């Protein structure tokens, strides 16, 4: 279906307390955990050092992203998604979520991919929108303004009230990436969050960078700074993020074509706890199967199984999560058509 699917812009996440994207958001501030467009690796210029991932809010999780992608996603209830491509540039999806814990809902989403082609799998502008049956909207607009500058705008509303609005601009140099993000700027009240990211390749496999968060509220302002380093080996990636908000270490290892393994350690000063998780992803393309499992230090065991049911364009997702400590179990399944 042409460039719409190739750009693979995921729909923005459902509304909820954000702050998951930013490393160090103080309480009271919410930032959308906006998932960035997964862009293929960046331009590699000849013999120069490898380029860097997009520094979005939660940019250093682009360093941590490879490891986080291995972990299964928890879902509950039944989710039925219908994807329909209307043209080369436009795609529409309907999602019905029947939930056991919350209200059931219906979401309508649309993805538009523009005509400015910057690479084999990238085309801009990308506009992704998602609306709930109660009127909550998630929208993202990503555009490549010039050769090296890409910008993104994202909005999130809860019914008709704007919960998150942010804009960012990212500059990709030869061997560095710099980005600035403005989150929930409110000129009238005088509050907002500004995040600056910088990531520089030091050698062909080592990248170092930092993040600075400045938040302001009437009567309160502060900054949080953190440093990040990422080392890429032949079949592994190790990332470390240290800062005022805690430490985050992740290790991703590709054992063979079928098995990928990740270990993650998170220590948060805000919530005063640490957790270690171990996850693995098993690909069996012959059986059209992707299996992700995870094991946690909080005694949580979870797994997700995704299977393409050939020859129909159906895919089935099953998920089960068990919390041994609280003795709570959650399972869900989803069907994607198209």
């Amino acid at each position, binding site marked *: 279906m042409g460039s719409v699917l190739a750009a693979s812009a995921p729909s923005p996440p459902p509304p909820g307390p954000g702050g998951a994207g930013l490393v160090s958001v103080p309480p009271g501030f919410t930032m959308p955990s906006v998932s960035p467009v997964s862009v293929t690796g960046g331009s590699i210029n000849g013999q120069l050092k490898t380029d860097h991932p997009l520094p979005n809010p939660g940019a250093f999780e682009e360093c941590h992203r490879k490891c986080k992608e291995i972990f299964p996603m928890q879902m509950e209830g039944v989710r039925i998604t219908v994807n329909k491509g209307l043209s080369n540039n436009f795609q529409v999806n309907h999602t019905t979520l029947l939930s056991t814990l919350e209200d059931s809902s219906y979401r309508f989403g649309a993805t538009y991919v523009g005509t400015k082609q910057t690479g084999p799998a990238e085309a801009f502008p990308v506009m992704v929108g998602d609306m709930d049956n109660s009127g909550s909207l998630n929208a993202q607009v990503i555009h490549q303004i010039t050769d090296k500058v890409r910008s993104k705008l994202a909005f999130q509303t809860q019914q008709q009230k704007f919960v998150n609005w942010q804009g960012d601009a990212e500059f990709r140099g030869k061997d560095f990436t710099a980005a600035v993000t403005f989150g929930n700027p409110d000129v009238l009240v005088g509050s907002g969050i500004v995040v600056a990211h910088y990531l520089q390749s030091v050698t062909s496999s080592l990248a170092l960078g930092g993040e600075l968060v400045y938040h302001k509220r009437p009567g309160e302002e502060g900054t949080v700074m953190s440093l990040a380093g990422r080392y890429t080996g032949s079949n592994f990636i190790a990332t470390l993020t240290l800062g005022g908000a805690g430490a985050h270490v992740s290790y991703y290892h590709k054992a063979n074509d079928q098995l990928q393994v990740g270990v993650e350690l998170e220590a948060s000063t805000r919530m005063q706890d640490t957790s270690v998780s171990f996850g693995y992803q*098993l690909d*069996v393309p*012959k*059986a059209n*199967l992707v*299996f992700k*499992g995870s*094991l946690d230090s909080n*005694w949580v*065991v*979870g*797994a997700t*199984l995704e*299977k393409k049911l050939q020859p129909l364009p159906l895919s089935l997702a*099953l998920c*089960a999560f*068990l919390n*041994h400590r609280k003795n709570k179990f959650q399972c869900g399944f989803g069907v994607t058509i198209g």
Partner: protein
Amino acid sequence: MIKSEGNVSVKARELSPDSGRVETRPPEGEIEGDDEDEELDETLLERLWGLTEMFPDSMRSAAEVSAQCSLSVAKKLYSFSRSALWVGTTSFMILVLPVVFETERLQLEQQQLQQQRQILLGPNAGMSGGMAGMMPPAPGKL
């Protein structure tokens, strides 16, 4: 025995005219019989317990402590093994079982395919590259 009986009868005769004197002691035969019966039931355990009194106090307390300890350890071990078995089984069911099912199914499918190919095209058809001697006559017909 005759002597005791004689004593009993003597005592009874002695007592009966004497109403002032209260005889609290039951007749000897009965005493002896009762004591024997009761002592037989109780003293077995009490005797055995009494035997332990010959050990020094420290040893007795050490034995008591170690017995209690081993009992509590056994209880803890039992409950630990129960919960470990539960956690292990459910985690195995969640983490490993689906993959095992799917790979087994895949293997069976492939086996079936191979068998079908064998039936269709003769033996050695399932092997990759095994073409010698099984050329069907179809090209000739074409």
